[in-house]
């Protein structure tokens, strides 16, 4: 797996080491299939969610791609809230709730969303709508653990609920939506029907909400279910109206199971420990004084073994990232015990969320329209991961090297840029004659002004030099591209006539 800026998130430690073997689960308990399942009750606490989603065209950022529709389920958690996956509401243009009997419909909106944890809280667009009148909110379950039997709720086309029982086979941290975003997850073994939707489903334990099914693999009949502590923390966090999100430590780690490596680190066999392979300066760990090369021995006195696992009182052997991302909230403290040069240090980290929006190359851009500028036919964009992904399935090897380098080594660019603006392409116009082959060049300077983001680019083009020629400079390139201001302006107005809705966006 490739190193990436995402690596800097605490939860990404898997990328730096071999994924350790899954903990052996106890033998699955026998399930009495005859037992009556609480189907009727489930129907009163489950609603259908329909979403129409539309994202922006990464290549022509002034316009959107064709909209797509998706249907799934949500769990009623209060007299006005439904919880479902974040995946259901990404770039939503229209959200609708429907009772399972199909009798009531109501337009919904997102109250809180966590794309990383893949959870979304929906409420009604019209608070006076009586949609929730006959619905019964679910209580949140005490967190089930390995061996407990869960009920996965589906709804058939005729509106009848369909409940499938299955045991929790194992508990592990899993990234089920965004790559590198690892959260505690139940692996539930149950053979589900294909007739109904098999994604974003409420999962119950003894009639209480235990999690949301995010992914079902029909080959081995294993479902990923967001674990109860994650769900509970998300709902609690969202309850006060401002959603803070899950904190990160801001380190990448690698295992210390190599005996030669341990000998060099002078790590005794009485320790476990994870090697810190990188630390983000502006992260909780960075501010606490954690350095690259330290060995993380424990968090809050919970000892971490050489593969990165600790013994969780409830869930058994769990990967360490859950100690931060799942067990703690923003602004809580975590005490890190690290080994440095043979000495054991205790460092206290004030936990914070590493927001995707603060990153030089945002990992996702749901709900935000891409910034861009067209000047005389030159198209400038801000670098984002979705934009890199638009280079195709093999984007990690096919996207332009200069852009991938920013994505993978953002620390080399963060001082100079808040966002990386690059010339992404050239629309053939009278102003761009001879410039057609130029693309994927990082812009450093326009009209003598350093470019830190799209806003500064727009501002720099606003100051026309005396000779009427805009001068554009690029990173690592010894040449300047010039644009004639009157011609560029004339070309831009023609582009608007040709159907471009706008020439720039800076939001």
């Amino acid at each position: 797996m490739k190193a990436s800026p995402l690596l800097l998130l605490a939860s990404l430690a898997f990328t730096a080491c071999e994924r350790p073997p899954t903990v052996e689960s106890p033998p699955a308990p026998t399930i009495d299939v005859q037992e009556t399942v609480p189907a009727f009750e489930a129907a009163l606490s489950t609603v259908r969610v329909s979403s129409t989603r539309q994202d922006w065209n990464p290549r022509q950022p002034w316009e959107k791609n064709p909209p797509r529709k998706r249907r799934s389920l949500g769990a009623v958690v209060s007299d006005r809230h439904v919880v479902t996956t974040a995946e259901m509401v990404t770039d939503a243009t229209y959200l609708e709730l429907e009772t399972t009997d199909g009798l009531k419909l109501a337009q919904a909106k997102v109250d809180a969303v966590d794309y990383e944890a893949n959870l979304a809280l929906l409420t009604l667009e019209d608070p006076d709508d009586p949609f929730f009148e006959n619905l019964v909110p679910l209580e949140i379950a005490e967190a089930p653990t390995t061996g407990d039997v869960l009920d996965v709720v589906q709804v058939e086309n005729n509106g009848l609920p369909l409940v499938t029982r299955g045991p929790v086979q194992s508990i592990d941290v899993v990234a089920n939506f965004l790559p590198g975003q690892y959260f505690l997850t139940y692996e539930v073994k149950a053979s589900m029907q294909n007739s109904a939707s098999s994604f974003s489903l409420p999962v119950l334990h003894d009639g209480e909400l235990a999690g949301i099914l995010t992914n079902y693999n029909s080959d081995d009949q294993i479902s990923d279910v967001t674990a109860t502590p994650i769900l509970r923390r998300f709902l609690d966090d969202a309850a006060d109206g401002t959603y803070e999100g899950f904190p990160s430590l801001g380190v990448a780690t690698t295992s210390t199971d190599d005996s030669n490596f341990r000998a060099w680190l002078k790590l005794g066999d009485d320790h476990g420990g994870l090697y810190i392979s990188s630390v983000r300066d502006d992260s909780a760990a960075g501010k606490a004084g954690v350095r690259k090369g330290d060995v993380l021995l424990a968090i809050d006195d919970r000892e971490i073994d050489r593969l990165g696992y600790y013994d969780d009182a409830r869930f058994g052997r769990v990967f360490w990232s859950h100690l931060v991302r799942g067990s703690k909230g923003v602004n809580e403290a975590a005490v890190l015990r690290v080994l440095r040069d043979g000495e054991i240090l205790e460092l206290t980290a004030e936990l914070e969320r590493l927001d995707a929006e603060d990153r030089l190359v945002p990992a996702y851009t749901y709900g935000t329209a891409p910034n861009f500028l067209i000047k005389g036919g030159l198209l400038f964009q801000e670098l984002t991961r979705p934009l890199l992904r638009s280079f195709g399935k093999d984007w990690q090897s096919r996207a332009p090297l200069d852009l991938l380098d920013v994505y993978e080594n953002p620390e080399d660019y963060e001082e100079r840029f808040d966002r990386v603006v690059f010339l992404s392409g050239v629309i053939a116009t009278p102003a761009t004659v001879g410039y057609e082959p130029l693309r994927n060049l990082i812009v450093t300077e326009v009209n003598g002004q350093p470019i830190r983001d799209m806003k500064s680019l727009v501002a720099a083009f606003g100051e026309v030099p005396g000779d009427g020629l805009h001068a554009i400079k690029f990173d690592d390139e010894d040449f300047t591209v010039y644009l004639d201001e009157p011609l560029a302006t004339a070309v831009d107005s023609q582009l608007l006539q040709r159907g471009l809705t706008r020439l720039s966006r800076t939001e």
Partner: protein
Amino acid sequence: MLLRTLAAIGALVLPLAAQQAIPENPASAPSEVYRSVVRIESAVQVPDYAMPWNSGRFGGGIGTGFVIGENQILTNAHVVSNARRLLITVHGSPKKYPARVEHIAHDCDLALLSVEDFSDFEDFPVFEIGGVPQLESQVRVIGYPIGGQRLSVTRGVVSRVDFSTYSHSRADQHLVIQIDAAINPGNSGGPVLQDGKVIGVAFQGRRDADNTGYIIPTPVVRRFLTDIEDGRYDHYVDLAVSTFPLFNDAMRRALRVPDDNLGVLVTGVVPEGSCHGILQPGDILTGIDGNPIDSAGQILIDGAKVDLNEIVERKFAGDTVELRYRSGDTWHDRAVELKPLPQNRMYAIQYEKQPRYIVFAGLVFQPLDTNLFATAKFDDLHVRRLYEDYLSEGLFTELEDIVVLTRIESDPINSQLSGFTGKVIDTVNGEKVTSLARAHELLHPETPPEFFVIRLLGASRPLIIPGTEVAAANERIQRTYAIDQLSNLEE
């Protein structure tokens, strides 16, 4: 790569040929000149870049050559590359004459052979090298392509004269002539004739188009023959600059160049190249040897527009070229001495070379080049970046080799190292690795340190090898994996 070279692979052709009945009385040659077109049977040994200590793959192929002088047989470089045995047969005779390579030029895919005993060839006609044929004029291709064992002749017309890639090295571009005659594997190295003179050497085809054959035109052939007159091949020379066309009116005004459609902008100058210290990025290049350079970088030679590099193509190491350029506000006319660009070999397929490598505690280190890249298909960003910038950014001035960890042969000493292959070695015990030889030196100090600490670019942690265990591990690995030599530092 759509271009393919036209040497037939022996494994395909020879068994086929063996099944065919050979006429008892071979027909006499239809034309006297056919006698001088010879069949070249090449037995090759291709090095194994994946397991560089292995002997490599044995194979063979068939190509064509032709007599151009006293014990001088011209053919393609790719027909005789990596050859261990060369045999020549003449039309209508079963006798095989052992031959050897006198000169080989991989950058223009030409080679000159000699036979041990030329006496049987003495009375053969000698081909005369002609000029560049006209478009649409008819040519004949003679050779020994697949589909039979005996001489084959095809006819076609000249479709295009262009500057294009020579697929043998992948990295070189020269003049080529495209013809519509059917030329096939085995035709490689054969003469293409017009009015009894050679106007080219058949050398490559295309997989994605019908009726296209490519031949090496005589200016390239003559250049090769002139270059080797002093007994060795000096390679092509290169200006070693990159340029940007000056089509854009705003750009021309900003650079204050007149509106005369002349000149290109210099955007890069390769360190240590011919123009290093003379041209600079930002200079405007407007003339070469008295020929005005247009805004697309083209010049007019013999009534045809060609790339400005065509002037350089026809010159030799040590020759000069007169450049007219503007630097700042000053115009210069300056003679520039031309040099080859040996670092360009990073991007060319190498032949006749023994792969270099080090095996150390099961870790296999190899210097990056196109052969290795083609074998290993690296996707590591650091590897790709260094490869791409090696020439243009002048990395070669500090990094003789880009040394890559290519494999780890399993052994107790390294069994817990995974996910590290395909990365570039940065330091050994804090010392920068600048070449494979340097890596070898650092990995073999007089007294081994307690630990070898090997840092790779972009790796999550250093690789730690306990110094005192290396010797035993090496011995074990050598035996287990049948690695006769633990290193080869010479090509």
